[in-house]
């Protein structure tokens, strides 16, 4: 990459504390970091590793309820821990810029994109408003946004997620900062959209020789972006090395375990040879929200004991299909069959037993569990409702379920959801769905909010439960690594239609439907040259938007 210059940022022994339960807790325990001009450092680790906290500290910023309690942060010769808040504030936006995880949430809904872009340069008197607008349009063009001279005059809700993420990168460049903090900028995006953002980020960092800290939990992504990788674990630094060394010869056990995550893959099962009816069959289903048609002629089967993964980008109709199966959204046309018998279209007219058979596990265990109800009661409620259990029988059943999901009943029965970690909450969500004794479970992106190690634990658990209880899964996901590890059959959806379906091994072997091919080839790989090669293959102008439409 471009010539590396002098030291720009030097962090030594950084300690950060957070305030909780009327005490200060240390969450970052002495981290050192040196970043040179034009260099990109990848900060990786699971949630709770302190990545974002350290990234923000590099801007001299601590979130409400956090404070920098020790160490030094020297940016371009200025010690940030001792300068005044006003001086620190003046660095932000002008010398150090920030790109947030969700651009959709981080752009102010009340202002046009370009007005948010010009805010900092005008405030710092770097450029006049009209100059800054002109500059914004040039940056938009450089980042290959469609209609670069017009798009800035739209409001955030009028622009797609991937485009917003690029507009935010442009905004970060508005004052030509020396350093940009990228805080998981592609985590919320589809793989196909992720590529365009990654390409744009790398491009612009190269062109302006900007230094960057790239925060992510996705190892393959960081391999494409960073010159140097630093691994963090629970607020401690584990190791640091240049990207290729780190990928080829990780030193620490923890790093090796991170690298090994993607290895879980269970044996693929085949459909039963006899022609027994599938557990769930979706036949020619059309569905619409109001007048907007969202599903067209969707058909697939799920057989007992098997996992069907439904993949596609956001808006492809994956979750809508799930809503049709559960009866939350009665289809316009077509049928849902359960063991060969047609189910009433609306859940309102289904019998209790029909409802019991199909259960759901949700993406956000945080919002799917009532925070004010004890774990025991959350799991006990469906057991009581569907199974009619009471008293000791109910308690025993809940204990049994907690055992199944590998949580100790004596410890977890009386606790509340907010006291649990993300993975534990998702396990409770699984137990709740099992309590109804279903034969079919819809898993809606159940691992996408979890760290990879935790996600793998959940996948293994789901796999074991499937074998023990002969469950059929419909696994909604946009993550092809998950598909690889757990699916037997795959259904690929695009814009409400099924574009390809079949057994998993066939799916991952060519020839593919062009869309499946695009999805597969867009999944980042650990090879640091992957993005470069891919972009060359696809051609510069054929990335993302252009390729998907």
């Amino acid at each position, binding site marked *: 990459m471009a010539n590396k210059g002098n030291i720009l940022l030097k962090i030594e022994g950084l300690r950060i504390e957070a305030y909780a339960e009327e005490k200060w807790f240390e969450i970052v325990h002495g981290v050192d970091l040196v970043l040179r001009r034009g260099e990109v450092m990848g900060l990786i680790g699971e949630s709770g590793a302190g990545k974002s906290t350290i990234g923000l500290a590099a801007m001299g910023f601590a979130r409400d309820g956090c404070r920098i309690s020790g160490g030094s942060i020297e940016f371009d010769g200025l010690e940030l821990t001792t300068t005044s808040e006003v001086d620190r504030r003046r660095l932000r936006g002008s010398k150090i810029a920030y790109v947030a995880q969700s651009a959709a*949430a981080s752009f102010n809904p009340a202002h046009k994109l370009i007005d948010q872009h010009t805010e900092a340069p005008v405030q710092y008197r770097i450029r006049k408003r009209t100059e800054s607008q002109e500059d914004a349009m040039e940056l938009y063009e450089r980042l290959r946004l469609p209609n670069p001279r017009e798009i800035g005059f739209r409001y955030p809700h009028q622009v797609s997620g991937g485009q917003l993420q690029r507009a935010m990168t442009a905004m970060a460049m508005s004052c030509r900062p020396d350093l940009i903090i990228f805080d998981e900028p592609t985590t919320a995006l589809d793989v196909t959209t992720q590529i365009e953002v990654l390409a744009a980020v790398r491009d612009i960092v190269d062109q302006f020789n900007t230094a960057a800290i790239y925060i992510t939990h996705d190892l393959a992504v960081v391999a494409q972006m960073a010159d140097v990788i630093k691994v963090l674990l629970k607020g401690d630094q584990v190791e640091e090395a240049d990207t290729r060394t780190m990928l080829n010869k990780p030193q620490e056990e923890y790093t090796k375990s991170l690298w090994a995550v993607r290895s879980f893959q269970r044996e693929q099962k085949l459909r039963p040879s006899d022609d027994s009816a599938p557990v769930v069959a979706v036949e020619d289903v059309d569905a619409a929200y109001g007048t907007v048609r969202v599903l067209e002629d969707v058909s697939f089967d799920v057989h007992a004991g098997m996992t069907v993964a439904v993949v596609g980008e956001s808006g492809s109709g994956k979750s809508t299909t799930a809503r049709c199966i559960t009866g939350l959204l009665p289809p316009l046309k077509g049928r849902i069959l359960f063991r060969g018998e047609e189910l009433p279209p609306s859940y309102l007219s289904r019998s209790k037993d029909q409802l019991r058979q199909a259960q759901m596990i949700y993406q956000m265990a945080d919002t799917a569990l009532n925070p004010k109800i004890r774990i025991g009661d959350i799991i006990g409620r469906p057991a009581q409702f569907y199974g009619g259990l009471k008293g000791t029988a109910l308690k025993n059943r809940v204990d049994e379920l907690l055992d199944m999901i590998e949580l100790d009943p004596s410890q977890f029965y009386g606790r509340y959801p907010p006291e649990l970690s993300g993975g534990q909450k998702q396990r409770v969500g699984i137990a709740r769905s099992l309590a109804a004794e279903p034969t079919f479970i819809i898993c809606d992106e159940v691992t996408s909010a979890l760290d990879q190690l935790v996600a793998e634990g959940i996948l293994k658990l789901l796999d074991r439960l499937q074998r023990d209880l002969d469950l059929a899964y419909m696994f909604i996901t946009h993550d092809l690594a998950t598909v690889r590890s757990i699916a037997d059959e795959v259904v690929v959806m695009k814009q409400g239609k099924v574009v390809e379906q079949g057994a998993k091994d066939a799916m991952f072997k060519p020839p593919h439907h062009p869309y499946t091919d695009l999805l597969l080839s867009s999944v980042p790989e650990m090879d640091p040259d992957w993005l470069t090669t891919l972009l060359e293959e696809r051609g510069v102008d054929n990335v993302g938007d252009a390729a998907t439409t």
Partner: protein
Amino acid sequence: MRDVGRLLLMRLGLGLLTLLVVSALIFGAVELLPGDIAQAVLGQGATEETLAELRTELGLDRTAIVRYVSWLSGALVGDFGVSLLNQQPVTDVIAVRFANTLFLATYAAVIAVPVAILLGITVALLRNSIFDRVANVLTLTSISSPEFFLGYILILYFSVHTGWFPSIATLSEDITFLELLERTFLPALTMVLVVVAHMMRMTRASIINLLASPYIEMARLKGAPGWKVITRHALPNAWAPIINVVALNLAYLITGVVLVEVVFVYPGIGQLLVDAVTKRDFPVVQACCLIFAATFILLNLAADVGAILTNPRLRHPK
């Protein structure tokens, strides 16, 4: 923008429907008032003949439905009938009083709304500081004191002790606008004190509610100074709840001022309503109630429109 227009038309239609229901309720409630209206008007000494004559004259011998329809069709063209007390058209009786009430409400609102919003923004900016706490305690005190009590306290200090302002807000034809402002200052101030707290606290709460949003953090990470974070980034997204509370309080300034009018002997519509109820002047009671209801509905409609116009998603659809 076409969607916004349709939304507005629908709200307007719903408002009219509500008003129709309310008119039936008002009419029904007046019907339920105890005692015979003719008896109340003519007094105990009236003979059966004169009573019967009056009932015929007032149309009381007709069924309630027929009377309701004829009253409503009159009201639609601005004819609320004739006052039973002095035989004047109700419209004339009310017009003057309602204008007075509107004047006082406007006077109070012109002071209260900007003060409340500015204070709300300031305390949101200085949240958890001494200033914030003092403002909280003071506004809570004023909101929890009954308005007649506030009124008398103000009279005691600003009128009795210092003599700065008159304690009675009587009006006459020949006073100048400035004199008018001076005479009605104390009742206006009383009402300001009653409504400011509510609006200020809502402004503060809706702004602080937004301060945890990612786009507020983004604004701070772009180096925006504190006041700019609040006024440029938080406030434009906080308008909807603020506008609603402002509308509710404006409605209160018009319909809830009876006690203040009594304390300061101000000739507004509230006093008129109280008089009319005690004297069984039912055409006036009905007309007053209908005006109050219309005010409420109209202001809520205005709040809805305001909330829509400040929401970029509705103003600029995809």
